[in-house]
Each structure stands twice: as C-alpha cells, then as structure tokens.
C-alpha cells in the first residue's frame, strides 16, 4: 500500500490532476471567507454586468471625500481618446461629408476643432437622405455623449433641497480633481461580472463547484456502492443470482441512462429536487457499468488459490468477499469512483440545463448557471463571463479527475505498468 502511494506520488499525471483538483477545493473553501455573503443575492439591476471593479458614484461625489488636485500631463488627451475614439471621429467626418462639408476641411486628428465643427453643423433632428434609422440614432447617441467634453468646468455638483426639492449648488468638479480610492467606502469587485439576475458570478461559481462536487460525491458513492455490491455478489455467487443481476444490468444498459435520469428527476417534481435527491437520482442511474466491470474482475479472482483456500477453511461468504476479493479490486474501485464523480458532475450539468436540477433560488449549480446564461442568450450577446468560466470549471474538474484516474491506472493496471 505504502509502495503504491509512493508510486502515485511519482506519477506525473496523477500529481497534476491531484494538484489541480486540490487547488479548486482549496479555492472554494477559502474564497467565501474573503468575500462573505449570500451568493444568490440579486445585487445588480442590470443583467450581465461585465467583470470589473465598481465604485460607488454616490460616494465618489460625496462632498466629504477629500479632493486632491493633480495636474497630470496627458490626462485630458487620454480622456478625449476614451470619449471620442478614432472610429467615432471617422463617423463624425462621414456625417459632415454627407451633410455637404468638403472632406478637406475636416481634420479628425484635431478633436477640438472637429467637435466645434460638429456642434456648428450637426442637427440631431436632421435626417440625411438615404441614411438608415440605426445610423441616424447612432449619431444622436454620439452627439449626446460628446456634449461638453472640452469644457473643464462643465460639471457641477448639486443636491436636492430636502424641503423644496430645489437643486442646491454643492461644488464644482474640474478635470484636475482626484480622490483616493481608499477614501471610497463602497467598492465592489466583480471578477466575473454578474449573471442575468444580477448575481455575483464568482461567488455563485464557488458555491456551484461545491454543490456540484457534493452531487458528484453522493452520486459517485451510491453508484459505486451499488455497483460494487452487485458486482461482487454476481461475480462470486454466480448461478441464477448472477443471471438475475446481469439481466437487470443488461436491461438498464439498453435504456439510455440519461433518459432514465430525466424521467426520474421529472417524476420527483421541483419541490423534491434538492441537491441530495439529485445526487441520489444520478447515483441510482449510473451504477450499471461498475457492476459489470467488478463482476468480470471477481470472475477471474474467484478461482485463485487463496480464495479456494479460504473456502476450504470454511470462511463465510461475506468474509471471503470482503477479505479475499475486495482488496484485489480496491484500486480499480477507487478509479471507478473517480470516474463516477466526474460523470455525475456532467450529468447534473445536463439535467440542470434541461431545468430538471435543483431550484434556482435554493442553490447555485454549474448546470443551472449554464441554463440561465443560455436562456438569456449570453452566448450570442457576448456575455462570455456568464458561461465560459462555468464551462471551463466543468472541463477542469473532469480533466483533473480523469488525469488522476489515468495516473492510477498506469500504476495499478499490470497491463499498463511499465
């Protein structure tokens, strides 16, 4: 045993898989301590807020925040480039040309004169002959965006009088005003943005990985336990017991497991589909191939000398099975268990994608996250953060588990052993 563990530690594949898997476990264990709170809290009143750091505008313009003056060279230019990128300037030039300006008179590299020219000529209500509505509206939006961008004193802070609602002048905001980030109380980091409900994606993902692993463990344990028990009995006892078990196995092999899973999950109903129940249901539908594999291993073991010796010594059936046979297939069972866990995680994802997993308001799971991303067209509308991390995590978990399995296989399987 010790020797085998030593060998495992030397196996590159196993170790990579193991480290990846453990890193995921470590991450989901410690992350909630750093960012506490309910991962299902709907905080965003916009769907699919992109990843980023969000600071409270209300706090930032609070008159009590200390304002520093910094004259940073290039700040104004950077602001202009950000507000009026080249693509917009080209669009402005196109409009002016279509409105009858000579192209030579327009210099898009001089934003200030360009804007002056624009303000002098652009009329948001004028519809240029042949211009489609979408372009017409795009120019109106552009026009609104760039108003006052060169006027450093354009922004003033007002507050509403609590009695009359009249605006009261508070302070001017100039382009050299800076505040320290540390002075702003409310900053929220959304490393993976939000989903369609406005829930923090990373927090959800952390919970979902935990839940999916739990489902995987429950399902894997059940499937392995049933598979092992039936396989041992069928293989060792043989005769009609074997036939009955194999008959059931064959029957279930013919029925696609996922269809059975869907039917079972549906018949339980939404109120009953908790994480545990989903895990149990997956476990109950995926034990078949473990049974078959264990049985065939047992068939080759049952006529070994030490088993016969044990029989002759009058040992009981359970003792023979558990003491003389099980240890020989234990490594195989562990590998099968790992694959069961990986398969169950995928099965949950598939089930939740169909809306047959646990409830959305109850818990986050990887499948549910993908389901919602898909039904709100995240994949078409470019909200990659709503589905890619989930897909990536599913791939990573199943990759690490499979890598561990392959690594173990190379050590325990005599045919593959170097």
């Amino acid at each position, binding site marked *: 045993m010790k020797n085998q563990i030593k060998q495992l530690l030397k196996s590159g594949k196993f170790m990579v898989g193991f480290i990846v898997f453990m890193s995921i476990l470590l991450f989901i264990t410690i992350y909630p301590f750093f960012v506490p709170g309910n991962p299902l809290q709907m905080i965003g*009143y916009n769907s699919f807020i992109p990843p980023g750091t969000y600071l409270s505008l209300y706090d930032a313009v609070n008159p009590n925040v200390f304002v520093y003056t910094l004259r940073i060279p290039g700040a104004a230019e950077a602001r202009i480039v950000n507000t009026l990128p080249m693509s917009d300037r080209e669009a402005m030039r196109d409009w002016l040309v279509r409105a009858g300006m000579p192209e030579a008179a327009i210099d898009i590299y001089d934003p200030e004169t360009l804007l002056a020219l624009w303000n002098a000529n652009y009329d948001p209500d004028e519809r240029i002959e042949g211009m489609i509505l979408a372009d017409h509206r795009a120019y109106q939006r552009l026009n609104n965006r760039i108003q006052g961008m060169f006027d450093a004193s354009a922004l003033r802070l007002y507050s509403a009088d609590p009695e009359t609602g009249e605006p009261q002048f508070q302070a001017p905001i100039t382009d050299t005003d800076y505040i320290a980030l540390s002075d702003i109380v409310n900053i929220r980091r959304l490393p993976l943005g939000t989903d369609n*409900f406005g829930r923090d994606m990373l927090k959800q993902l952390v919970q979902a990985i935990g839940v999916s692993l739990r489902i995987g463990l429950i399902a894997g344990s059940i499937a392995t336990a049933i598979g092992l028990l039936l396989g041992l009995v069928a293989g060792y006892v043989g005769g009609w017991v074997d036939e009955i078990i194999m008959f059931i196995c064959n029957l279930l092999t013919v029925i696609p497991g996922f269809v059975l899973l869907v039917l079972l999950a549906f018949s339980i109903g939404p109120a009953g589909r908790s994480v545990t129940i989903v895990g149990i249901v997956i476990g109950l539908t995926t034990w078949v191939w473990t049974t078959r594999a264990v049985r065939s291993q047992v068939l080759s073991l049952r006529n070994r000398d030490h088993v016969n010796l044990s029989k002759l010594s009058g040992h009981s059936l359970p003792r023979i099975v558990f003491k003389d046979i099980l240890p020989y297939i234990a490594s195989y069972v562990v590998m099968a268990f790992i694959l069961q866990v990986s398969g169950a995680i995928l099965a949950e994802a598939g089930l939740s994608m169909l809306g047959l997993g646990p409830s959305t308001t109850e818990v986050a799971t990887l499948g549910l996250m993908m389901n919602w991303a898909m039904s*709100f067209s995240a994949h078409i509308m470019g909200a990659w953060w709503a589905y890619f991390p989930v897909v990536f995590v599913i791939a990573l978990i199943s990759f690490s588990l499979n890598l561990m399995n392959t690594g173990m296989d190379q050590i325990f399987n005599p045919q593959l052993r170097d």
Partner: protein
Amino acid sequence: MRKRILAVLLAAVFCFALLAACAPAADDPAPAPPEDPAAPTPADPAPAPAEPAEPPDPDAIDRSQFARAPFVFPDEISTELPRNETVYHFGHQWGPSNGWNPFSDEMNNPLAIEQVGAGARVPMFETPFMYNFLDGSFIPLLAIGPPRWNDDLTRLEYSINPAAFWSDGTPITAWDAEFTFYVNNTYTAAPSPFIDRVVAVDELTVAIYAALNAAGQPLNPLMLDQFIIEEYVLQQAWLEQLVERNNGDIGAMQADPGYDVVWSGPYTMYFTNDELTVLIRDDGYWGQHESMWGQLPVPRFLAHPILEDNDAGLAAMMAGMVDVSQMFIPNVQNLWEVDGLPISTFMDSPPYGVTVNMPTAWFNMHSDKPGIHNADFRRAIAMAVDYDLIIANAMTNQSPSFAEVPRSLMNPTAGEQALFDSARVAPYQWDYQMPNVNDRIEAANELLDEAGFPRGADGWRTYDGQRLPAYIASVPFGWSDWEAAMEIVAAAGEAIGIEIVTQFDDWSIYQTFVTAAVHTEYDIFMMWTSSASPTAPWERAYNLMSSDHVGHDHNWSGNWGAWTNARADEILSLIPVTTNQATLVDLWTELVILYLTEVPSFSLMYRPDQFHAVSEAVWTGWTEYGDGRNVPPANALNGFAIADKFNIRLVG
C-alpha cells in the same frame, strides 16, 4: 389640419370619380396599373384611405369600373427568393403550416391568418377596419368611411369600399360579411355572446346588431368595435364550398387546408414547407386603388423561416437574414450600442416599444394549500416581489417600472390611465406607496404575522401550527423572461418565509393544465392579459376578474385562477353600458381598488403586444417613434401596421 384638408381633397376626388362613373358616356376606366412603388420619404404620412362625404350608394355606382383580373398563380415556384424583393419575418411560426384556411384556427400559418383584438393580421385576408393601437383609431380597409353607431349603441353600420374585390375578380359585398358571420357563428362550439346578427342592408352596407340584455340594452357595444377590426370578411361562395364539402362538420372544416381559398389582401400563398412559409404579392390587389393605399405593397415576397428557437432567429437577424422579428431579445440595445448592427426597435431607449400587455402571475383558487384563499397572504407575496429587478433583469428594461406606471388594471397608455381616479387608488398601490422593496418585504412580513401565518422555528411560515407546504410556481419552459420573473417571485417568497418552488413545463403541457376547468398542478402561474384593443381595458379587467371564464374547459379567455367575486362581476357588466363619465370613473376606481385589495393575480411587468425589432440590412423605412406616420410597431402585419409594407424601401 393638413390631414383633414388632404382627406377632404381625396373625398372630392373620390366623389368626382363616382360621378364620372355614372355618366353614360364615360369609358370604363381600366383598373389603375400597378404604380411604381417608388418609396415615399419617411417624412410622408403613411398612406391613408380617403374618406367619402357620404356612404356610397350601390345603385349609383357601377362597380365593374373597379374590376380586377383574377389572380393567376405563377407556373413555377422557386424556393430561391430574391433577397431584395423579400421581407423575412421571424418569431411567429414554429412548425410547418397546415394550410391557408382562414375559417380554421388550426392552420399554424400566422403570417397569413391571425385574428386578434389588437388588430387582425391583414396581408392575405382583410377586416373591414384596421386598428391602430397607438391612438385607438379605426382606419377603413374593406370599408370606406367611418363606422356608424346608432344612438342607443345597439347597431353598428359600415359601408364596403366599392373598389374592394376578391382575388377571383368578383366584388366584395355586404352579403359576404353577413355570410361570414353566419358561418363563424354557426359552425362553432362557442357562438359570440355579444353579437346578435350581421345583416347586409344592401350590397355595400353592413349592419351589426348587438346582443341585448333583458332591459333591451346592448350587452357590450365595445365588442362590436372589436369585431370590425378582428374578424376577417370571407367570400360567401368559398365558404359555401367549405361547408358543403365537409358536410358542415366543424372538425372537418377546421382541418380543411383551404388551398382553393379566395382572398382580398395584397398577398397570397406561394409555398410552405418545413423550412419556410412564403407569401407572394397579388399584383391585381384591389387596394392599389386611390381610395385605399394608392399603390401596391413594396416587397414582392413575405417569408417566415421556421427555425429551432429564438437564438437561431436572433443569429439570423444579426446576420441580416431576418428583417422584422417578433421575439424577446434580452438586452436588445446591445445589438446596436455594442455590436453596431443596423437593428432598431420602435424607440431608441427603454422601454423600446409600446407596452400594452401585462403578463400576470395568478393565484390558483383550485389549490387547496393554506393561504391561497386568504387575500392578505396573496397580497403579502405580491408586495414582497422586487418588480424593479424583474423589469431590469428579466425584461432587461423593456418595460416601464411600476414606480413609473403604478399598478392597476390598466396598461401604461395615457388613455387607459385616465379612466380611474389615481388619487383614490394610490393608497392601494403598494409598489407606489413603498418603492423600496425592503420596506415592502417588511410590510409583507407584518401582514403575514397578523393574518395568522407566524414563522416557525426554522424560519418558514406556519398555519395552524403546521409548516406551510411548498407552493409550485410555473411558467412555460423556455419563455426566458417569464422564467426569470417567476424566479424573482420565488426569491420574494424566501424573503417572507414562504417556500415557492418554480417548475417550468413545456407549453403543450402547461396550456392543457392552465386552460382546464379545474386544475391543481400549479399554485401560482403566469398568463397574459388582453393587450391593446377597442375593448381595452374592459376586456383586460374581464380577463382578470370575471367569473364568466370559470368552470369551462379550453378556457382561453381569462381568469385562469378561478377567483370569483359578485361585485366584480356586477361592475364588469355595468362598465360597457355606462356612458356618464363620472360614473364610469367611479366604477373603474372601485374595480381597481377591489383588484388591488383582493389580489387574485398580480402583474409582473408591462409588455408589448408583439415585440418589434427591425433590421435595416436590406429594407429601411420602418415605423419609428416620433416619425409622424403613426404606424403601430406590430411587425408590419397586424392592423394598421401593414402600412409599413407600403412605405419601406431598399437600403442604399
């Protein structure tokens, strides 16, 4: 003013044409040749039919002058449609069509056949009038001149346009209208309760008689208004054949594909298969006469691809392969603001469209779970829902908020909002009184504590010492905005200690449950309300509160939660026959307060009758907010929205 002068001028032209027609020496003018559909500029008002000074007199008009040649089907059908002659629609049809029979509602051919209160779909079959839900106006289509009511609102009359002809070259007459009603009302399981009969007064005059109550008053005159914009007029000769060849068997008549149907509209059947339904322009269409549109519609083909789902349709639209779409596109503004695509909605900013419908969550009175029959319990759930979140995230702001348009029985249009006394209703509008959801949750918790549903040790509420069961909340599977909205209702339940579990079932299953006379599968479920129509908001209130709908199988008309209230029924019967404005406001106010106190259901959002997004990859000139054309955003198909088909032009 300009419009009125134009109308008078056109009327004069029309009268002159009539006089000229009567003059014995006048040559028969040939039907106007199809005009070059050179597009008018967007600033032009939508083409509107002329209004004659008086109803046309059939004896004084020789209709043969307007005669058209029968439509001849093209010898060859090409499945390759020229892109610059085809408008592609999407979001109406999800499977192959069964035929072109307008009598049937089983054709699954929504591009050609749809008769709804917000205005029937008129490319192939036509109604006497077109409805414009933007201003509630009626625009003559088969009719000419306005509808004419008698004083006690028992009889509605309209005249058929003498220029209106069937596709087989025969004139459309009042007898067609009379016979259509006769067939629709005879060969049906549910004859109209509101219309007594339709009578042809003469060849061109149709009179519709309202069904009367015991006191001799019309049951609901609004329904007659709705009738003339909702029900197609079909050809008597064809209907006779339909009845005869199916021996008057309703099922067989419904199943008849009607390939020999005769139509009056500007488009007709071209082909339909598993991938595409296509209509082709009928170049002999009567409506190109100057008394109607004065031109043919611009696109030669209307097509509807049959795709797997909304995502496929959206991808096609983004690629410029779909021109007009009726589908909910989450974050639709990203299409132009982020992706820079030439796609637009009616308005450039939220709510992007005209929201006239109110998808509503219903409590199911058939459920025997505790609380459902308690008004305070129902109100607590409704109060605790974060509607801002539904509107921001489930509807992605394609609805005004309930702070902007406080809840009632009315949609956000100004006309409906003016019907009740908002000051008297305000104290009952919880999301108006308490705009912050946390305040509402607190109030809902208090309400439940007082109503006898205290929290148990585990935080979930109890009744009679027993933990409340989980309430099943359902919407059809895949209706993503509704699914998300219901999840937010479920989250509200959690906040007040009531376990609400969502269950999304396939539409085919869902609708069987919800429309059954008695159903217990769901405790809370979502359905729509009636949209914009001449009968709104009465019909919406009737949908939401009338006991008339309770206890019927195949109930598609409303009150699916089966809540009943005698006073609500009484008010609903009084409103249609009340003409005194002050009394009417009192009745509406009382009804709204009753609805907001009893909470048999609660609306979750406002929603357009049809989503309407257009692509300008190929065609431009679609209706837009504030363009002065006053064409409703209804996919250029329903009611007066068809006017867009006469206005669009190719890009570039």
